[in-house]
Each structure stands twice: as structure tokens, then as C-alpha cells.
């Protein structure tokens, strides 16, 4: 088995076990959309755009008193290390879209826009692990950019095990590390999304076996990662709003 840790306990990409990858994010990247954001996390790059709130595409579909979120998820064929064309009906894509839809639906204040629809489009240009969480964070920033009222941010981060050590934000080679998990199973990867203000968890997905006591540790680690990400998101929003205000000031001056 390949040793997943270097001599001094560093991971193969030089990170400590509880360290996030380099995160860069930007809002308002797509002027044609109502809201947009790009999220870079290591080599993972995700674009999110938001259209709406608008009238539902099929009016009969949403007669409720709140806005309905719909999510479309697209993974570029060249995003992974091997080329793979996925159909529009790909199961994994649908599952991720559904997880995003459910989580974000609870985060927005939908009562403000009855019988309407908010479309979120996620485009993954590069996938190097943590696609689900990067997509969630990008979507949150895009919703903020679109001016949709929200109860709180949704911050998402994953954690996993490598040779019995809990690691934060695994990349694709660490996610796929066979034998990383206890009992030689595929290394567990646990994405957690939470509302940073209350610390309440809104998404938790585990796809492999894990002893109960380890799950609590892993959840704790992922939650800490989420809080770090939430801080970065707040900083990004503050910066974006400040630049918007500055640009508005120059407009009023020329008037």
C-alpha cells in the first residue's frame, strides 16, 4: 500500500491533516446572470449562476406560498483526470443536484417570493475532490449575489480518513484511496453543510462504513472546516459589497 503521509505527517500535497486547500472565490463573475460566483478550492473549480426569482417554468408545479429552488448540475467532460462524458440523466449528477436543492431550499427565505422559481446552475470545470462542497459554497455565494434573502450562509466542507487519521478537505487522490478506511474499505468521505451562525447541520452524507465513535470525530472536524469556510465567504461578500458600493459612488459623482 502506498504511504499516504510523508515523513513528517504531511499529506502528499504538503498539507497538515487538518488543513484546507487554498480557497479563492469571487462573486459577480457572470454579468448576464442575476447572481454568480466562482469557487476555487485547490484544483477544483466550480461556477455557479442564479436566475430568478421568476415565474415557474411550469406554473402548475409551484402553487405553494414560497419560492422553489431548482438546481441543474453539469460536470465538464475534461474536469477529471480521465475524460468522461456524462449524460443529462447521470445518476451521480442528479444526486448532487438534489442534495444542493434540499439544503439551499431550507436556507432561503422562500416566503418572500410565493409561486416563483429560483434556478441555480452549477458548472464544474475542474474536479479534484470536494466537488459537492465546492458546488454548495459557490451556490451560496451566487444566491447572495442575486440578492435572495437567506436565513444564513450555507458552508460546506468534507472530511475523510487516511490510514486511521482524520483529514480535512480530501482531494481526489485521497478520496479514492483504497484501504484508507477502517477494515480496508474505501476511505470514507463525509461532506457536511451547516449554518455557521447556529452551527446546525443541514447536510450530511456518508457513503461508506465507519464506526460510530469515529463518525462523531469526523463530523466535528468537518464542522470546523465549515466554520473556516464561512469566515472566507463572509470576507468575500464584504469585499464584493464594498466594491459594488465604491462603483455606485463613482456613478453618482459623474451624475
Amino acid at each position, binding site marked *: 500500500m502506498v504511504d499516504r503521509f510523508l515523513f513528517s505527517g504531511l499529506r502528499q500535497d504538503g498539507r497538515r491533516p487538518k488543513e484546507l486547500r487554498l480557497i479563492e472565490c469571487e462573486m459577480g463573475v457572470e454579468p448576464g446572470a442575476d447572481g454568480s460566483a466562482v469557487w476555487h478550492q485547490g484544483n477544483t473549480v466550480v461556477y455557479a449562476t442564479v436566475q430568478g426569482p421568476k415565474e415557474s417554468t411550469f406554473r402548475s408545479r409551484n402553487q405553494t406560498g414560497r419560492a422553489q429552488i431548482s438546481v441543474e448540475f453539469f460536470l465538464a467532460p*475534461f474536469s477529471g483526470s480521465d*475524460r468522461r462524458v456524462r449524460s443529462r440523466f447521470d445518476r451521480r449528477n442528479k444526486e448532487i443536484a438534489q442534495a444542493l436543492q434540499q439544503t439551499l431550499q431550507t436556507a432561503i427565505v422562500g416566503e418572500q417570493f410565493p409561486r416563483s422559481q429560483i434556478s441555480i*446552475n452549477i458548472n464544474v470545470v475542474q474536479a479534484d475532490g470536494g466537488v459537492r462542497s465546492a458546488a454548495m459554497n459557490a451556490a451560496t455565494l451566487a444566491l447572495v449575489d442575486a440578492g435572495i434573502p437567506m436565513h444564513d450562509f450555507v458552508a460546506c466542507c468534507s472530511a475523510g480518513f487516511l490510514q486511521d487519521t482524520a483529514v480535512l478537505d480530501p482531494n481526489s487522490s485521497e478520496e479514492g484511496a483504497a484501504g484508507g478506511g477502517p477494515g480496508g474499505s474505501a476511505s470514507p468521505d463525509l461532506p457536511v453543510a451547516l449554518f455557521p451562525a447556529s452551527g446546525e447541520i443541514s447536510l450530511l452524507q456518508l457513503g461508506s462504513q465507519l464506526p460510530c465513535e469515529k463518525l462523531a470525530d469526523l463530523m466535528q472536524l468537518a464542522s470546523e472546516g465549515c466554520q473556516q469556510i464561512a469566515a472566507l465567504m463572509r470576507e468575500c461578500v464584504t469585499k464584493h459589497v464594498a466594491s459594488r458600493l465604491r462603483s455606485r459612488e463613482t456613478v453618482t459623482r459623474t451624475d
Partner: protein
Amino acid sequence: MLSAGERSFIEDGIAAGIRVDGRAPFTFREMTLEVDVLPQANGSARLQLGSRTSKTNVLVGVKAELGRYLSKAESAAATVEQDDSDERPVASQLGGRIDVTVQCTAGVHISDPMLWSHSSQSPEAVAAPEPAATSGVDGAADADASAGATQLGATQGGGEGTLTSEETEQLLSQRLTTLLNTGGAYKSLLEVVPAQYYWILHVDALVFEDNGNLLDALALATRAALHNTRVPRLKSTEGPTGEAELEVPEGTLADDDAQNIRIPIEPCPTFITFNRVGPAASGNPLQGFIVDALPAEERCSSVRLCVGITSGGVTSTTLKEGPASLSGQVLIELLDRARASGSALLGAFDQALARLERRRAAAVRCAMEGSFAPPPEEAESTVPEGPLTEGEEISRTVLPLLNVTPAAAASA
């Protein structure tokens, strides 16, 4: 849909030689070109046609795959398994090629007013189609695509019998694949071991936004992506069975030009699409024709000619589309114009690619000399263009409005 007033505004404007955004008929919009944007692909480019808020935006990634010709015994086995009625060569016998797949990203739907399926027309119309409906070189392909999508077209189409987004993607993919592989120049260029191994370049073109002239944008972006595509220089040794065995030499870096093969773009053609807005004029055969049409202009267009052209001025795949017909004289004039426009467009485009290439080389040189992140000015000082202008980066450049009228190109 366009109102009658809007339509006549566009048509009258073009008759007077002015377009809705102020351009002359044979002028391309401003282009923003960014290369080497995807570290995980062998080559990549992003092309934006038009301004910030309304643009056609495509991203192209190239991934190389090693293909192998089947030996005689293997191909015999494959033919037995295959349906006897299928006379087409097995995919693995096609050799080195470029394979283009166009896909819309999430939330994007493309519709081309010039392409339509027959599905939503009345049964009589399907039984006896108008000559105009199947005109164009690609008529057979159109018919194929529409036959397979009769049910789809009725429910998801953009209305009035236009093709669905998926069908349009398939047609564009087929068209670009044909364009790049005609002439067979790449078949020999992509050979690794003669008669045994070859490269297949998978070109994945993603449409992020479509605001007119998608086909030309896709072809140009593909050209830019191929320009920075690098495939490893494989070491071939003779195996025990006499077959070549390939390996990547140790220590090969993905971006070292000495260890990689570059793909020449001289044989790579591009499309130039001419749309005719308004009726045919008797005096000037090119009256009403425009390049780089906006979506509204595409909707007013009655006929269009997509000409595949190389930088050497060789005409490649050419398609005539739309309900109106063209006279032979107009067609010849258009092809002449396409040759002149093609050399002007590709000349400017290739200059931009060379500029980006020099900048990258300078940046790499600076990095090798010790400073990890060279400031752009410093990298720039070693290249002749001078400092970067606004909106430019080391890997991104802006091509201004480009007039491809022969007179304008000659004076420039």
C-alpha cells in the same frame, strides 16, 4: 420572436450598411481570448465574442487519448461480432483524428433559427418536404437528427419546429468534427507508431453563453486550444511479440516543449458564417450579407453560408442553410470574400496566439531565473508588445473589432 418593427429596423439598417451595434457588415465583434486555462487538459482556451454583458462565451478543453489499430486477426473477430449490414469501418480503424463534442453547460439552451426539424410540421409536409427544407450540404444529417427526435422536438423544442438544444449540440459537434478532419492532414500528424498507435484528440467545447455566431466562436476557440495542446513524446520499444510498446519517458513535464509534441494549427480550418439579412439585391451580389451576426440578426436572416477556410486560403467544409436560395454568382462572390476574410481573421487571430505564446515563454523564463511569481510588467519587458493594456493578463488578450473587408484589411 421579433416584432415587425424591430425586424424592419434591423433590415433597413443593414441595407444602409449599419448594424444595430454600430458595426459595419463585415466586422467581427471584439474578442477576448484566454489560453491554457485548464491544468488538467492537454490544451484549452476560452473565447468571448462581444462585450461584457452580451457575449458568446465558450470554453474548449482538449484531452488526448492513445488509440490502437486492431491487428488483422482482431479486426476479423470484431467484424464477425458486428452486424453484417453495417459497412462502416470500425472506430478503432479510423486512425488519428480530432473528435469534437459540443455541450451546453447547466442552464444554457441553444437554438438555431436556421435549423429546424420536420417533426412539428404537418404529416403532408414531412411526406413531401419543400426543396428549401432539405437544402444545404448537410441536409441528410439534418433529416437523420430530426427523425430520431420526433417526440422530443414536440415537447422540448424552442417552438415552431426548431431543433432542441440537444439536437443542435449534436449537429454542431458533427459539423466541427467534419471540418477538422477533412483533408486528412491530422491523420498523419497524430500518428505515433505507423499502422499501430495514434492519438485521438477529444475536443470538448462547452457553451457558457450564446449570443450569436456560435459556430464561428467554437471553431476559433478550438483552433486556440489546439495551438497550446501538448501531447507527450512517447518512447517506443519493440516488445516480445514484435508489437511496439509505448511509454512516457521518465521525468516528462506536461508543459516542457522539448518533451512534448505540439499540434500544428496551419492545417486547422475555421468557419466563417455569412448571413443574408433582407432580400437579395440585383446590383451588388454581397448586398445584405454580414459576418458575426447577433441573435436578432440571425433571426432576420433568410439564408446563410458557413465556409470552412484555412489560413492558407483553402476552402474546406462549406454549408448553405436557410429557406432562401443563392444564385451561383453570389455563391462565387461569397467564397471569394470568405477567402479574403479568412486570411484577415486568421492572421489577426494567429498573431494574438503568438503574442500569448511569447508572454508565456517570458513568464516561464522569469520563473526559472528565481522569482516565483514574476510581476507582469517584468515579464512584459522581454517581449516586444510593451506593457499589458487593460483587461489583459499573461494568458489573456483582447482582439479589437476586426474588419475583414479586403480593402480594410489591406490598408490595416
